[in-house]
């Protein structure tokens, strides 16, 4: 029995990256393989956004996934907790994107456990960029994954957000950004409504206004579904951690927005 085999993974102590570990040990578990010139229609997630506000960052996303012109899922979750102080919003091919989010979560936790310390926000953002680059080949074949990453930077004491392109290029945005098929409409909306140092309530309303605008203009994005009681998901990332916003609160804000739009009579 060889030395390495006897200790199975019990060697090579200097490495605290989970992705590297998988690459060496179980490369078949890594995402980024697959896709071809005739990749059939796969499920796509649509609009996610991140907005900086007084206490940190809000991330929000609609709940619909589409495959071609069909609705593939009405309740898909697109905003994932990456660790206590950061989150990823996924857009693009839903399968690989969710896989990537899971791998990213494991990567951060693995690093934290091995090193006994958290990665810096910058380090997390770079790592996600590298993981998107791993997926480039699949992206060229129609399985692109383009997340938004946002988190609270403990050192700087502010919320920060990053967007990516399919090559893993990482671009920091200062105030807000949106990604996915409805992103242009969401960004237009945010551009008009965003203000510096908004309190939580206003930032949440702004985010939901933008998602409702995206759902209005983009066929892929799902709006608030009053019949089934499905609403966009909203998360807050602040100094005190990654927080869920309850469905009830989101429902109230959505209803207020829709009522205001009905009263105004201009549809938006």
């Amino acid at each position, binding site marked *: *029995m060889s030395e390495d085999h*006897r*200790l*199975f*993974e*019990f*060697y090579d*102590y200097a490495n605290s990256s*989970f992705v590297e*570990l*998988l690459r060496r*040990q*179980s490369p078949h*578990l890594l995402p980024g393989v697959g896709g071809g010139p005739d990749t059939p229609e796969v499920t796509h997630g649509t609009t996610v956004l991140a907005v900086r506000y007084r206490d940190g960052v809000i991330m929000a996303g609609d709940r619909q996934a589409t495959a071609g012109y069909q609705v593939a899922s009405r309740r898909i979750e697109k905003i994932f907790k990456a660790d206590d102080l950061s989150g990823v919003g996924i857009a693009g091919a839903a399968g690989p994107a969710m896989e990537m989010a*899971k*791998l990213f979560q*494991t990567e951060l*936790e*693995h690093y934290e*456990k*091995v090193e*006994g310390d958290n990665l810096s926000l910058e380090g997390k953002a770079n790592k996600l960029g590298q993981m998107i680059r791993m997926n480039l080949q699949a992206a060229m074949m129609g399985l692109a994954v383009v997340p938004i990453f946002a988190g609270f930077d403990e050192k700087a004491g502010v919320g920060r957000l990053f967007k990516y392109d399919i090559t893993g290029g990482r671009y920091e945005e200062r105030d807000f950004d949106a990604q996915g098929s409805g992103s242009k409409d969401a960004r237009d909306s945010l551009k008009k409504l965003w203000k510096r140092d908004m309190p939580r309530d206003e930032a949440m309303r702004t985010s939901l206004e933008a998602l409702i605008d995206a759902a209005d203009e983009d066929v892929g994005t799902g709006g608030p579904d009053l019949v089934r009681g499905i609403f966009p998901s909203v998360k807050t990332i602040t100094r005190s951690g990654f927080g869920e916003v309850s469905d009830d609160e989101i429902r109230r804000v959505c209803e207020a927005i829709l009522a205001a739009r009905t009263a105004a009579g201009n549809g938006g």
Partner: protein
Amino acid sequence: MPLPYYVSPEQMMKDKAEYARKGIARGRSIVTLEYREGILLVAENPSSLLHKISEIYDRIAFAGVGKYNEFENLRIAGIRHADVKGYSYSRGDVTAKALANAYSQALGNIFTQDIKPFEVEVLVAEVGDANGAKSEIYHILYDGTIEDERNYAAMGGQADEIRRFLKDHYQHSMGLEDALQLGVRALSVTQNKTLSERDLEVAVLDRTKERRKFRRIPSEALGQLLGTAK
């Protein structure tokens, strides 16, 4: 080329075991106790940076005594084992039992095949959930011997005395404060000094926590729990 001297297998194993035991006996000890809300781990460790107790996975913690570089190596291997398993199956499929067996295999193989055995003992603890699943504590020795312990466990230099002390004083469903005080008393049973929060490394697997149950108890909180902070 001269032939190597013949050493009988019995003698070789005996020598190795003695060597490993001596190495372990030089180190300080660790105790583990089940308390009302989970599992408490207390180590005598004056360093606040080099840990003897660590998180492995959601419900699983690790503790090691003996040679630092050797159990640190095992600790990282354990995290890797758990993370790969949790990633390829699901988080709920990662168990202390599988991990303890992996440690047992690795230490057993090292003991029989390498010239120098590892001078370590490790402990793997898994906290049960609130709806009645039992907690598990595995104690793995330098030669791969594996034991499952109930309610409490001790390892390191003075483990036998500590175990005797715990046998006489352990009670079920203690609160964290009581369990901690008992643990610290147990650690100092063979010494004639009292241990303060600066000499200790303490962590719990707290079943009331969400997902990741492992929590270190920082020095200030420790002082309060021990009643030494005024």
